[in-house]
């Protein structure tokens, strides 16, 4: 039970006395387990994934798994948090780099799509499998989506009374929900290749309530 399922030479870190500080090894193992879980879940779905799948992909022993996590669920939560931290950082950075709000929304959405396209396993984990991974993850998933609301709310600033009157307390929530739905349905259906072409549609959809259809389309298709 303690022996790795991969021969040690295939493991990314050689076993035994490699002279690396313990903390580094431990962090590295944890990262490998998280990456292993993402691969295993992409292959088997959340429900079909076992700890043996995870340790095989991570090339660590079962005992190592239990040094870091008590259960598959706990490992999944760690993976989910890691993915979302990275995704949020990229979206936030892209958004901050633009002066104008419409362009910032466009940059943020582009960064989100780029990340999901370049990391299909993590995309599936965070947008599809998270929903079946139990109440703790679902709660975080809901919160992660709601955390996008302020990016859109920023679009209210400086708008005319006319425009503001057209927005309700749920406008941003509905926009975020629509955007996430478009993205996650394509990931669910294994049509990740369609994500890139989705950018102009998402931008236009997001900007329309603030700028009107014509102006939103202009920014979206610029």
């Amino acid at each position, binding site marked *: 039970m303690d022996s790795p399922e991969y021969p040690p030479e295939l493991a990314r870190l050689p076993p035994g006395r490699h002279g690396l500080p313990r903390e580094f090894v431990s962090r590295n193992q944890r990262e490998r387990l998280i990456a292993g879980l993402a691969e295993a879940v992409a292959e088997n*779905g959340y*429900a079909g994934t076992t700890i043996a799948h995870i340790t095989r992909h991570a090339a660590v022993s079962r005992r190592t798994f239990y040094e870091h996590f008590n259960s598959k669920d706990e490992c999944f939560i760690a993976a989910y948090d890691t993915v979302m931290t990275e995704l949020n950082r990229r979206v936030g950075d892209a958004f901050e780099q633009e002066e104008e709000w419409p362009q910032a929304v466009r940059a943020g959405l582009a960064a989100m799509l780029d990340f999901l396209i370049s990391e299909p396993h993590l995309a599936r984990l965070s947008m*599809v499998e998270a*929903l*079946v991974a*139990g*109440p703790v993850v*679902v709660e975080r998933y*809901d919160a992660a*989506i709601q955390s996008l609301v302020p990016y859109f709310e920023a679009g209210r600033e400086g708008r005319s009374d*006319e*425009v503001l*009157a*057209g927005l*309700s*307390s*749920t*406008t941003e*929530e*509905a*926009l*975020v*929900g*629509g*955007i*996430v*739905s*478009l993205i996650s*349905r394509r990931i*669910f*259906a294994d049509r990740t290749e369609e994500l890139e072409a*989705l950018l*102009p*549609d*998402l931008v*236009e*959809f997001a900007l*329309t*309530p603030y700028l*009107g*259809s*014509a102006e939103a*389309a202009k920014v*979206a298709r610029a």
Partner: protein
Amino acid sequence: MASNSTRRPLPGRHSLSRDFIVRHQRERIINGLALEASERGYRTVTVADVVRRAGIARNTFYENFGSKEDCFLAAQQYAMDAALEQVVTAAGEIDDWPRRVEAGLAAFLAYIAREPALARTCLVEALAGGPAAMQAHEESLQSFVSLFRLGRDVSPYGGELPETLEEALIGGVFWILYQRLSLAEAGQIEELLPELVEFTLTPYLGAGAARELARSKEGASRGKGAV
């Protein structure tokens, strides 16, 4: 149906009432599952919970459904069919497209308010129900697309609207409903009508016209509700 020929003939006079009993049993089981799932989450519900809630024998459950998953999919289908029937009936009577959308959404919200457990099964628990449930959820989303798509004919921007607009609007509406149902706020769900109408009409008609339509009806439906 071809499958009828392979069945044993039903004993004459009893066939109707037997059909009735079977249908009634199915509905009881489906409702039992929906109530259990909405209270404790689909994942943790067992067949034993459903059997107890529905007040039927365990055997009866298995005469109707192969498994908990099977029963869940049936519940999802049952609720979505019922909700869509209400939507189609309400929307079909109206020619004017914006009013038609409004009537359809109003009927959908009314169904949710009336059947919160079944609605939760479709709009919340389905997402945690695995690939088959997710697929059925997809299809229910799709069934709203045509209702909204008609708006392109009356929209000044009709030809230029993004291909995915309807999908995004319905995704947004479903997300709002998901949020409210997750928080067990089905009781207040009908209050969302003006906001949802405005949200869905804006891309087709522009914000000003959408707001006017959404709010003029708000007064009218309040008046009706007070009767």
